[in-house]
């Protein structure tokens, strides 16, 4: 093959350009002008506020439509009674308690639970949480994220937030794992791969797993303490930025600038959205759901073997003295390592029984559930994604929890309610 000279190469390039490129004055469209408004802080922030409102509103409306409207009826009305009738054994038997229902005491007698959330079995609570609560929430979440991504808005949001995120050693694209974390921390940890350096990934994994409450946790919080959910989320977001700032100073490494091509604003194509949605959902079905089920199995084993009670008693002084919550909350807080949503529901039970005496203790307990450790599924994902940096992340987690949980207790003391 004949080798071309530089001049010949340029001739070919010129010919191609003449055939393919047309010149003229670019006509600005209304879409371009709206796209520009979305990246300017003065106009972009109100737009972001509206888009996030739509995001959250769609997320809660559709997921509660599926879960409360249909899943609860299927699981509590048909699946649980069927299992209670047909599974060999009764509450108190090891296998039955582990797989179906631990039961609860009524007048000193152990009886079956009447809903899947309180049954604590792998086939009841485990299946209900993973398929009845988390799956619809994740489906809606990924659908909205994909639409925002394909419409060209998400890159604009990344540009808009780039300055703020740089203050904590990240860049605008860090908003993607952060938003994903509000759905489920597992894909959020996976999404930290879009960040370039090791430092950024460690930072992001730590912040997401501590300060971003997942969708199922938020929906239980919304159900148990609706009037304080907003305040708790704001407190956690404050922690996200404060600890991000501190960790950025401590963790060595680089935080490079972001250089991205902003696509045109456009109507997403159904084909692309469904393809992306399928890829994301199948990855969650393969990695997320088995982990939630495994979490149910482990919480059952630890609960039935008395390990959770033992750990609760062991860590009781830390919970009562440092964090200022009643000693009885230690068991749900330990169990939160495996199932945060159920831990919040258990705390509601303690409040109803008068053990958690006031709203301040309730808020502290719920904040601690969010903060103090990632759930098992996220824990395994961090282990997989971080490799040798796993220890650093866990260390950062412990330090953040101690400082931030203690700080909340201090606020209550200063207010005279602690």
């Amino acid at each position: 093959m004949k080798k071309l000279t530089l001049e010949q190469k340029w001739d070919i390039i010129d010919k191609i350009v003449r055939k393919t490129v047309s010149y003229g004055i670019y006509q600005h469209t209304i879409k371009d002008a709206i796209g520009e408004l979305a990246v300017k802080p003065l106009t972009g922030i109100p737009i972001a506020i509206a888009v996030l409102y739509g995001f959250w509103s769609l997320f809660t409306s559709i997921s509660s439509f599926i879960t409360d409207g249909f899943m609860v009826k299927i699981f509590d009305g048909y699946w649980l009674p069927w299992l209670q009738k047909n599974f060999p054994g009764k509450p108190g038997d090891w296998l039955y308690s582990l797989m179906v229902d631990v039961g609860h005491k009524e007048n000193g007698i152990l009886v079956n639970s009447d809903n899947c959330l309180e049954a604590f079995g792998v086939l009841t609570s485990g299946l209900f949480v993973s398929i009845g609560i988390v799956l619809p929430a994740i489906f809606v979440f990924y659908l909205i994220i994909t639409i925002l991504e394909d419409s060209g808005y998400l890159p604009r949001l990344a540009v808009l937030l780039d300055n703020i995120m740089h203050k904590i050693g990240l860049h605008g694209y860090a908003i993607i794992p952060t938003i994903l974390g509000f759905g489920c921390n597992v894909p959020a940890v996976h999404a930290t791969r879009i960040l370039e350096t090791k430092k950024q990934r460690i930072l992001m994994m730590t912040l997401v797993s501590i300060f971003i409450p997942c969708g199922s946790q938020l929906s239980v919080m919304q159900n148990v303490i609706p009037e304080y959910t907003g305040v708790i989320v704001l407190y956690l977001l404050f922690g996200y930025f404060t600890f991000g700032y501190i960790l950025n100073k401590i963790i060595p490494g680089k935080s490079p600038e972001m250089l991205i091509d902003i696509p045109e604003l456009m109507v997403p194509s159904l084909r692309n959205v469904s393809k992306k949605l399928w890829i994301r959902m199948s990855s969650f079905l393969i990695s997320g759901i088995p982990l939630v089920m495994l979490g149910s199995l482990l919480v059952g084993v630890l609960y039935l073997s008395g390990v959770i009670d033992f750990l609760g008693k062991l860590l009781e002084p830390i919970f009562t003295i440092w964090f200022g919550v009643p000693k009885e909350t230690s068991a749900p807080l330990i169990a939160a390592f495996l199932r945060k949503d159920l831990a919040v529901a258990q705390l509601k039970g303690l409040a109803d029984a008068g053990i958690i005496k006031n709203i301040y203790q309730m808020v502290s307990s719920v904040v601690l559930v969010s903060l103090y450790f990632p759930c098992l599924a996220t824990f395994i994902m961090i282990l997989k994604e971080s490799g040798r940096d796993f220890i650093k992340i866990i260390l950062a987690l412990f330090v953040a929890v101690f400082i931030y949980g203690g700080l909340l207790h201090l606020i209550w003391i200063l207010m005279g309610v602690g």
Partner: protein
Amino acid sequence: MRYKAYFFCLGIISMFLGLLSILAVVLGKDSNITIVEFTSDAFRGGWGGIILLSAGLFYVHGIKRLDDIHYRAEVFVGSGMIWIVGGCEILRMILMSIPGEEGWLNTPEGFVSSYLPPYHPSILLLPFSLVVWMMERYYEKRGCRDSQGHK
């Protein structure tokens, strides 16, 4: 000129309704004025109110130079914000009307009663905000230039 006056009025109303929504949250009191509902819910009332207020500001600022595409985009964004809040409210109403309290589906009476007033302010503003499409078609036909002189 007629679009200027129209969106100025719509902007003022939107700001007013947004402020009332925020006020209901601050005072922690639900209230209805005729068929409009001002909820004390921090999300729908507070956050939604801030969006309506911002939409009004976009309208009032955007009408300054409607022959410039950048200003018209602001009016468009104002309408878009109302569509987001109003659209979510309508979807919420539809989704809440379908499942029943005990059975799978709602009773016919329950279904119909889900659509009765009072409504969130954004639902009332929504049909009026759609005029933005007519405005855009009108200015496109006139072939207005943008602030950089581009057609």
